[in-house]
């Protein structure tokens, strides 16, 4: 077992993990943060996306032991986030979710896309979502929601 001290959603945590445990194991099984989901467990579907030191990662293929000293933000840490609330509202209005399983990972990816691009084009959004599988919606609502949220947050620039 390895002790990992990290900050999760602004809370300091110290947990013992197996060397082989992933960050998704740590978050879901040790800290009971089950908001994000594990869809493939091999880094291909994006459902488990969280932010690690400010960057979106697929937590199922990040070793927990390498997160010592890191800051992690999960969907639970965005519940009072004004920017995420805007993204959430557009997901709601554009029917960007059906079963909801991919949604927390999608949202974490979405705010990262908006942060990096300001107001991304449709092609940029689609390209940035190439690692996020949604099996229900056909992506159209998701892409529209991200673009609409970006416009509301960052103005109407073409970027």
């Amino acid at each position: 077992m390895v002790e990992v001290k990290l900050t999760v959603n602004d809370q300091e945590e110290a947990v013992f993990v197996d060397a082989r445990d992933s960050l998704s194991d740590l978050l879901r099984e040790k800290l009971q943060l089950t908001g994000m989901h594990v869809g493939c467990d091999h880094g291909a579907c994006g459902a488990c996306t969280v932010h690690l030191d400010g960057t979106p990662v697929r937590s199922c293929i990040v070793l927990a032991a390498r997160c010592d000293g890191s800051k992690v933000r999960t969907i639970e840490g965005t519940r009072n986030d004004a920017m995420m609330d805007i993204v959430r509202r557009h997901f709601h209005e554009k029917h960007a979710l059906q079963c909801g399983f991919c949604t927390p990972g999608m949202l974490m990816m979405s705010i990262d896309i908006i942060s990096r691009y300001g107001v991304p084009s449709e092609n940029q959004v689609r390209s940035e979502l190439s690692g996020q599988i949604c099996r229900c919606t056909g992506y159209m609502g998701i892409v529209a929601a991200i673009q609409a949220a970006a416009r509301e947050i960052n103005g109407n620039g073409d970027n």
Partner: protein
Amino acid sequence: MLRKEDRRHLAGASTFVADLRLPRMRDIAFVRSPAAHGCIVSIEKPTGRENSVFTLEDLQPLNPISGGPEIATFRNATYPPLADEKVLFVGQTIAMCIGTNRASAEDLAADVIVEIDELAAVVDAIDALTDEAPLLHEDWPDNSFIDATITEGDIAAVRDAPVKIRRQLKMNRQATNPLETRGVVAYQDHRLDELVVYSSTQGPHVMRHGLALALGLPEHKIRVVAPDVGGGFGGKNRLMPEEIAVAALAMKVDHPVRWIEDRNEHLVASIQAREHHYDLTLYSTAEGRVLGIEGSVHVDAGAFALWPSGPFMETGMAARNLPGSYTIEHLHIRTHTVATNKAPIGPYRGVARPGACFAIERMIDELADELGCCPVEIRRRNLVQPTMMPYRTAGGLRLDNGDYPKALAHALEMIDLPKLRERQRKGEPDGRKLGVGFAVYTEQSGHGTLEWVKRKSRVVPGFESATIRMLPDGTINLLVGIQSHGQGLETSLSQIAAQELGVDPSSILVRHGDTGLSPQGFGTFASRSIVFSGGAVAKASRALATKIKAIGAQLLQVPAADVTLRDGAVQSSSGQIPIADIARAANIRPELLPAGTAPGLEATETYEPPESGGVFSYGVHAVTLLSHPVTGVTEIIDYVIVEDCGTLINPMIVDGQIIGGVAQGIGTALYEELPYDENGQPTATTYGDYMIPCAPEIPNFRIKHMVTPAESTEFGVKGMGEGGAIAPPAAIANALNDAHRDCKAKFLVTPMTPRRVSDTVADALARENAE
């Protein structure tokens, strides 16, 4: 109306099976067969860990349960929860191991030594029926579950038709791939004396029945709960061996047990789908009027028949849907439901119809090519006309109403075909080929008792039920037997109840997916929930409304016929009474009720639509794509959908179902395939090999709704959850055919991956050069 379900999902606060946390819960890993076909010689448990490893013997007593239709000629093979004698596909469950977490359970599973005497594998459904093929089930005369012939009219009468076209087509095998894999948590609740089984399932009541049969338990001692379910698409609508094994194990140990399917398990051992082989001959007049279709359908059904329905429905539906939307009078199809050393097939969005639609719509375009005619014109000549409705197809389906030619005309208006033809003539600067393809489809939905009896189904999902209960403050619990796993039924069913009761949908809480709460139901599949459950909710709501109005009328001292329910009140010309006041009286202040009125505000109703053959949604897809002749990469540049599903309860949800279905259909058309090698080893075992379309591969869609209300259902609704997935393989293949028409490349096999397109074009060019 926006969806009620969204809030919890957007907050990351939903509860899927894997999110449940129970004290002392342990994880399960299965030992699975590495061999496609073989006899188990021995199963050796690791020394000292025997108590944590379970084989079939350890789970006894269990009753073998049989899936498949109740037909004497259907050969049955019991699918054991854990294999003990033979293994019939790679991934079949053999033993289960308990660990403190999944990783330690997998460690233990890796130490279980299974000796298997391997036998030759059967991997091709057509070869499987030859005399040389090894037998999967030794007491069967061959590898066929059942052979049947679907026939209508007199095919011999049209065999000398002036135009005959024979083609072999194949729709390859897929996994259903909901993003949430399957999962089961089970434990004994000693207080309630029941076995609680949380399962990611589409139909908790039916699963409870199957579990009761398998475990030999009385049904009232089993509670099945489907919490949030992360998509199903058919893949969570059969009782699977893992569900039985985990439930049985929970009765043997004194702690909750949990199994969460991983993606590898999903791809090799969950419900698989499609894999249809068609060998068809189409007979037509010289003018392109199709007279008949003859040939065979082989469905590669895998090793076992899943409970309850087995694979036969797939084959029958494929054959019966071959005439599609056309006035084809003569049909003669031999069907073979074939056992192979692969995971069993089950339902997947569209069930059989994506294959049938692919086959008939490709054949129609082949006919157009043969006659040098426009594919649109050939369709016009053969489509069922609105004046012919209701129309009984040669497949025995009753197309209830609609205007198919108009749907085709709308699609044409939306794409501007002459302009696309002009662009096609000019050619693309980058050498890609532009193609336009059409497909027409129908979607049987909301079919009832007689239809399922005709299919010899063991479980006949001929009705749905709803209980509506008004609480003392006037808010409402609505309990239904369907299971919503993305379809938004918590929203649309509350809309229906709200309309009938004149209250706001926010005052209604829909509860589903729990046999401990809901009245008997069958779950959500076969595009049935809005028809069946919507009907049951409407009926129950009306029964409740009748009582509320009667009470209100008496209190207002007017005849019951003179009051209405609106804006949360009983309204009459002489005044109004809030429904909440009546709810309070009926529930906790009975002395305020009019004399002779029974207390309580609750109603339970069942509903079956009067037209047992179902109501048919239909539509036309028109695809424009660019195909690279060398790399084989396909880019969809426009996707138009014209569809008619009768009355729309929630247009946003309907569009979501269409778009999501089409996206899956694009997966079927271009990307998704579960291949097996000659030894029966599956070769797509991760998302590295199994391609699921992401946002860059899926285009925006343009949708036009036509609304022809169904005549037999409540509100005129028709089911439409699957239709989106039916037409895309056909429309896209026809567009590729159109793009490469000059070299006569034929696209007759799905998925049309870059490799397959590239090879098909190269072969066609080579043939052309040789000529």
